[in-house]
């Protein structure tokens, strides 16, 4: 961004050190305030050393910080606190003793077959949804990136499921995947019996396919943006070296969008772990027989319907640890050096 030759300050002697400083900050943006203090420590007055060059930044960020404290930090602490208690709802203002139960909620999480089932369901979901999402969105994004005619039409049609409410599209997929629905009519004798969403084996994979269909537009958008930032010269030099389009796709495009791929992996995993609306509506509350229950659906049933928020909070904490482990593994195997 800031090239030495084009920097407006670089021509003037007196401003040169300022220009150098700015450039250093752009490159190492994460350490910017430290470096400004270190390099310019003797030159800058005390208030700059204490608050940085633009203390207004703290004011601009204040609403966000307050929001994070109220909506994230405090509830997060509250969730952890709750998970160690036999917490239950009372009328507002009533003071009751909610007994401390130590790790009992967590012990229950790991011994409850329904919870284990829901975590297995998430794994089934992720194994189907995540690779499918990454492959399909990268292929469709690069097809879209090179197309000239009807580009807007294709983009719009890919994004439309993503921008539409889950509840609305669930309505039509319930209709399509019904026992006598259009999908089974088309499949004829190949139609599964019992039908997709009431079949214990197929319920979760069907949800995974539905979520892939629903969210793909967003990931295509991400990959499209990433593809457009891959320098065109790379393709040209690859072509000069004799690489065909397929070779260019695997040798230039795929490595070029690696940061986006890592992001997509992470986002798809988080989406999968947070599944709620789909099992709640598509399979009528995680049926058949819990075959498509998700942890968040269990949290809702336990925490709010049955009034055990402490237990639900414990499920939530275990779920987050589970997602973190998966995300770390993904980052280790797909993230590269960054």
């Amino acid at each position, binding site marked *: 961004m800031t090239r030495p030759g084009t920097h407006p300050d670089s021509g003037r002697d007196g401003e040169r050190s300022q220009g150098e400083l700015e450039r250093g900050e752009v490159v190492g943006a994460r350490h910017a305030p430290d470096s400004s203090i270190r390099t310019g420590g003797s030159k800058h007055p005390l208030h700059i050393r204490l608050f940085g060059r633009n203390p*207004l930044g703290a004011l601009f960020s204040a*609403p*966000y910080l307050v929001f994070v404290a109220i909506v994230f930090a405090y509830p997060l602490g509250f969730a952890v606190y709750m998970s160690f208690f036999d917490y239950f709802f009372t009328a507002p203002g009533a003071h009751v003793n909610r007994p401390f139960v130590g790790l009992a909620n967590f012990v229950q999480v790991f011994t409850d077959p329904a919870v284990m089932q829901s975590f297995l369901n998430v794994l089934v979901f992720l194994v189907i949804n995540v690779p499918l999402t990454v492959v399909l969105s990268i292929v469709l994004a690069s097809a879209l990136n090179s197309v000239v005619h009807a580009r807007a039409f294709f983009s719009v049609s890919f994004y439309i499921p993503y*921008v539409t409410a889950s509840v609305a599209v669930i309505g039509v997929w319930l209709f399509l995947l019904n026992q006598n629905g259009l999908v089974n009519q088309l499949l004829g004798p190949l139609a599964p019996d019992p039908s997709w969403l009431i079949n214990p084996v197929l319920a979760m994979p069907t949800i995974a396919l539905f979520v892939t269909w629903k969210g793909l537009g967003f990931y295509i958008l991400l990959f499209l943006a990433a593809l457009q*930032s891959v320098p065109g010269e790379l393709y040209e030099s690859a072509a000069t070296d004799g690489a065909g389009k397929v070779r260019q796709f695997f040798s230039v495009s795929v490595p070029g969008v690696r940061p986006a791929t890592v992001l997509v992996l992470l986002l798809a995993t988080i989406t999968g772990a947070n599944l709620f609306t789909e099992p709640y509506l598509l399979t009528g509350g995680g049926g058949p027989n819990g075959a498509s229950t998700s942890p968040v659906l269990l949290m809702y049933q336990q925490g709010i319907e049955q009034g055990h928020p402490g237990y639900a909070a414990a499920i939530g904490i275990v779920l987050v640890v589970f997602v973190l482990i998966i995300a770390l593994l993904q980052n280790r195997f797909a993230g590269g050096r960054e």
Partner: protein
Amino acid sequence: MMGQPTAIPDQNGTNSAASRPVLRRKRKHRPANSLSRGQTLLRGVVLIIGAFVFLFPFYYMLIGSLQTSPDTTIAGAFPEPGNLTLANYAAINSRIGLLTGLVNSGIFTGGVLLGTVVFGVLAGYALAVLQWRGRDATFALVLLVQVVPFQLLMIPLYVLIARDYGLADNYLGMILPFAISSVAVLIFRQYFMQLPRELFDAARIDGASELRLLWGVALPLVRPALVTALLVTFIGPWNDFLWPFLITKETSMQPLAVSLANYISNVASSAANPFGAILAGACVLAAPVVVVFLFGQRYFISADLGSSVKG
């Protein structure tokens, strides 16, 4: 995958057939680095199948919502004059109150949009452009907050907002957890980072204040990005189901997504044509977003800010 050489139809053809595309290529001055014909064809097929898979359910939603009795045969996918009716819309309206639902969705969405844009731009600008102590810590916090899934906070937020603050069945309670989106802060930061630093340095040398820099220099430059962020943020609360579902029990306060979902899970079994009514409700819920999206699609799709800043 993207077109094997064997898929090119004219490679095994006769001389005259093979020379035609070469001639055409010469006439159009196509660069050497373009797709072969077979690859272009395959790309087209992939894109058209994709478009069909994505669009068909929406078409089917509309058709299904207009059918007197649900016709699930393949012929039912085409409009049939004798089987068309608006009765499903009247049926769903009498059960869940479409207008109330739309108004509630609108208020919820509007509140979230306002908070997200105003506070998100301020925080994003502070993180991207300004140098202040605590910036790194704040940026780390924005990233950290992404890691915390809403579902972990769902239970404590429900206890706090619905039980302790008494904000159940209240717009404020609906909006509060989404009043500022950390993703939006990151997006705004990214947009502001892409602006050349020289611009800010020059304006500062000219004596512009920081507020003036934000309002007069930075914001106009990222306006397309701002519209994009606005439209993208609009989708979230309009379509959101889980939180408004938890916090609203009174039907008069429920956004349309919640009342329709309740209809799907509870009432549908007792209706004469449940699928027709569900699909009619789905059309009403989907229509505003689809319309906004179609009109604003160039903002959704021109996600690359690069051209607007560099050009």
